[in-house]
């Protein structure tokens, strides 16, 4: 790849550290920058550097096969290690890309959504959040995961609360998120503590080795597993631990909602994969049982429950948030079936859903930006007043439903095939059923947007066309086009993500990845 020629050697080697350290340091710098534009510019620059580095490092490490970076020269298991492998490289790229895309959108959006004097700290907190997410994905050390989890979470609480300039309910949502997020993190760190008790190490690869030697370990390991699953389950909005999510998504600034929806829960899901398949092992009885009964069970119930809730929502962003909970159910179902095909499908849905839901939240945010629309009842006639935004929403929405030639179809189809191959026809039925429910909640918005007349304003004039600014249209169309590209395999987009998912699944299940 031509890009690799321009990346200096040291960046390739030290890249895993750079993508964490750079945003951390620059967050401090950004917070004291005067005004909005410089802060935005710095944040943009940092995320772009991170994106390029993540790309380069992913390619470099996959090519050279080096996957462990000893932090400060201390070799694991004693030193802290960072690792890049087929499992987390796509997530790293996803997070950094989404950060760039959402930042493009943020330039116009923050004008309306964040108080003027808070704009520089806003970008600083965003960088912290990015750093935290990248850290928890890239690190190979279990305690480090907790630290970065907290870094990103605390930054997120702040960011959600900043939505208060738009809607005061953001404060209570952020508070609720803070309480529950802390509980989740606490559960997680308790689990890590138990694991440390059992294995005497904090390095995840080491833990995995020791647990395998102990053949699953004693009851301490089981307790540790329970705490970790629940803690991460809360973070990834597993039903019924999703209570914090609709509020946080609905009232945060649009950029944050989009970024959280497409990366935060996904990073937590990545951690779940890492712990379930890498540290623990589905060959252990208790892991297998929890996967099969708890994750699949809650995933399926969540799919149905949250889809039904989404149908009746009156707030467009809460609707999408509940749909996110339902989509998490798909991914959990894929993880829970625990075959190579199903984990591939779950991982694929993770990537695709990030793209789809990102596009949807951006479109809804633009509707608020122009017309102050948050309620589903207000989207009437948007097909005429905001044609491009509505078109992008339509493409992403169809993709969420899983219409052929869109990304959603690719992953849902894979998931259904994987479930069928396992003989779980009832799961196929549930997938189809929830896709039909998705037709209802997305179709409700689309029907109103295209077939209702534009509202009449107070002075008796019909609402005229008022399209979103270009900097908002570009990101939302990037998402929409990406989902179509993946769906139609133009430019090999589908092969790319499916290939990445397959490599990740093979690595997880130890199939010669």
């Amino acid at each position, binding site marked *: 790849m031509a890009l690799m020629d321009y990346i200096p050697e040291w960046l390739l080697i030290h890249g895993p550290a750079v993508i964490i350290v750079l945003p951390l340091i620059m967050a401090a710098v950004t917070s004291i920058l005067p005004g909005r534009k410089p802060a935005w510019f710095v944040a943009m620059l940092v995320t772009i550097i991170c994106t390029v580095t993540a790309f380069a490092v992913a390619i470099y490490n996959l090519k050279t096969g080096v996957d462990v970076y000893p932090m400060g020269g201390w070799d694991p298991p004693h030193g802290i290690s960072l690792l890049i492998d087929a499992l987390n490289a796509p997530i790293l790229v996803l997070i950094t890309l989404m950060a760039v895309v959402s930042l493009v959108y943020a330039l116009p959006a923050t004008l309306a959504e964040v108080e003027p004097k808070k704009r520089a700290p806003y970008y600083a907190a965003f960088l912290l959040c990015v750093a935290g997410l990248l850290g928890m994905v890239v690190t190979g050390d279990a305690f480090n995961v907790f630290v970065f989890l907290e870094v990103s979470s605390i930054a997120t609480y702040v960011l959600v609360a900043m939505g208060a300039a738009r809607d005061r309910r953001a404060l209570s949502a952020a*508070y*609720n998120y803070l*309480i*529950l997020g802390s*509980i*989740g993190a606490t*559960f997680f760190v308790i689990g890590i503590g138990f694991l440390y008790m059992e294995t005497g190490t904090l390095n995840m690869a080491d833990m995995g080795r020791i647990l395998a030697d102990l053949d699953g370990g004693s*009851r301490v390991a*089981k*307790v540790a*597993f*329970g*705490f970790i*699953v*629940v803690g991460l*389950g*809360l973070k990834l909005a597993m039903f*019924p*631990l999703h*209570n*914090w999510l609709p509020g946080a998504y609905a009232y945060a600034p649009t950029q944050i909602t989009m970024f959280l929806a497409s990366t935060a829960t996904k990073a937590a899901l990545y951690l779940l994969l890492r712990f379930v398949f890498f540290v623990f092992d589905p060959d252990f*009885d*208790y892991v*297998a*049982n*929890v996967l099969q*009964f*708890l994750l699949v069970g*809650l995933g399926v119930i969540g799919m149905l*429950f949250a889809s*039904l*809730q989404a*149908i*009746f*929502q*009156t*707030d467009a962003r*809460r609707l999408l948030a509940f749909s996110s909970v339902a989509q998490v159910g798909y991914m959990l179902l894929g993880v829970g079936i625990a075959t190579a095909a199903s984990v591939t499908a779950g991982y694929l849905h993770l990537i695709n859903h990030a793209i789809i839901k990102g596009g949807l939240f951006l479109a809804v945010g633009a509707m608020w930006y122009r017309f102050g629309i948050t309620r589903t009842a207000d989207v009437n006639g948007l097909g005429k007043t905001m044609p491009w935004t509505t078109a992008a929403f339509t493409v992403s929405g169809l993709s969420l439903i899983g219409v052929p030639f869109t990304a959603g179809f690719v992953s849902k189809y894979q998931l259904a095939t994987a479930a069928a191959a396992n003989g779980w026809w009832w799961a196929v039925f549930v997938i189809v059923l929830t896709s039909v429910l998705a037709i209802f909640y997305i179709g409700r918005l689309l029907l109103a947007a295209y077939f209702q007349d534009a509202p009449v304003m107070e002075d008796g004039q019909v609402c005229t066309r008022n399209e979103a600014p270009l900097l908002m249209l570009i990101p939302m169309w990037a998402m929409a086009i990406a989902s179509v590209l993946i769906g139609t395999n133009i430019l090999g987009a589908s092969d790319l993500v499916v290939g990445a998912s397959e490599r990740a699944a093979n690595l997880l299940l130890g199939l010669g990845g």
Partner: protein
Amino acid sequence: MFDLMQINPGLWVIAAGLVCALIPKTSATSYIRKFLIIAAPVFAAWLIFQIYDSSEVLGGKLSFSGIELTTLRIDNLSVVWGYLFCLAGLINGIYGLHEKCRITDSSALVYTGAAIAGVLSGDMISLFIFWELTAISSVFLIWKGGDRSYAAGIRYLAIHVLSGVMLLAGAIIYAGANGGDFSFNYIGLDAPGGWLLLLAMGIKCGFPMLHMWMQDAYPKASITGTVILSAFTTKFAIYALARAFPGTDILIWIGCVMTLFPVFFAVIENDLRRVLAYSLNNQLGFMVAGIGIGTTMALNGVVGQVFVHVIFKSLLFMSIGAVMYRTGTAKASELGGLFRSMPYTTVFCLIGAGSIAAFPLLAAFVTKAMILSAAIEEHLYIPFLMMLFASAGVMEHSGIKVPHFTFFAHDSGRRVKEAPWNMLAAMGIAAALCILLAWPWGGYQMLYDLMPYEADYKPYTVDHVVFQLQLLFAAIFAFTLLKRFKLYPAERRAEIIDADWLYRKLGLNIVTWISAMWTRLGAHTNRLRRSTTDALGRKLYQAFSPAGTMSEGTPSGLPAVLTAGVLVIVLAIAYMAGT
């Protein structure tokens, strides 16, 4: 990747149609549309000329999830249709120059392009796509025909979409039995899915009892629309038949019946465009029969017949269209004596009529005889006689009736202007081609050179010319005699319903009855149904709406307890596994 020679030329015409549809509608842009409508077929023809190298050219290969598509195939069979459709597109474009309608322009271009792309595509999936596209794009031409045409357009669309679905189903069955090979070549009736494919093609080329859409929709389209419609759809289907089912015996009989039955309807029909639609159906019968005979001479005859048929059929539709444009009607009962005011149109119409009736020196003379001779060579005497009778019938209704009632007969008293210049130009080109392609000294050989096989047929032999003239004069004599003794069915204002009685009357009655019963049944069941669905909806709403029991805003405490609860469940599951 982007190689001009790898792209199906029809796609450019479709693209031109989309451009026409998208550019804003002002008087200035209509010139752009008109330019495109002339230039696109010419460009496509030039591309075909560039790509074709007198052997089979395959290109534009794509692969979609394991299905190999060949989007471009130009060989000695499809190249004829390719040129023909480009030519027809050009003539239609000139004929429609006066129209300022964006929908007509764009759908005509998309329709033309789809037909070109369809005959030049080498696999059944592409064929299906263009098969449906021709139907969908052409229905707009019907809808431009006014209020009456809406229902006819819907019927047309429904039948053609059905045909497309059958084609796709047949293709999938066929390919499934052949290891997923979708390439479109000889199929035959013995192949799995063969009957389904034959039926799909049969609908589109108007097999007996499947033909009703043609006489239903064509006369109701706009003036230009009918001309455009008559050129492509059915000939596209003839191509598919010639490709997939040459030498299939049943086609001989189907074709012969097809040549015969429209004759009677055409004689009593009053709407001249409908007469021409019946005559179109009858002409298709000759082609189907020729495909059924399947010898090289018969297939040559079919190809030649298709080529000249498109030209003279357009010519006839164009002349009646020109009359309709000036007088506002195409009813035989209201026309007559127009040769005084529209002399050029009269001459062109007579050339077209002579061509369809196969007068020596005019187009069909050099082609239709090949099919008839092929029938004799194969000792198919009964089909030969049926087709012979049908030839006389053609003379009767298209050759005599149409020009007679329009331009001669009793004077209707209408004094109108001659047709617009562009219509005259289009008709002139078509008429000139009719004469040129049958010209004994170097003209018809050009046509024979286009044929897929070596053609060594000599049309201008003494016995053939004499025989044909006897036949034609006998028909004229019969017409005169019947007129003289007032036995010829008078032109009456009536709409004739033939096999479409099945669905336009019987079907309608059945549907009316069912809907009446359904309404009564509905009234009874409605309350029950509504109460149950309402109850279900209310339950769901009570549970899941934002105010519902499952979604009440809760303080942070409850989720915390819930978290603990989930932990207990996880631990319970994990512990049970251990013991």
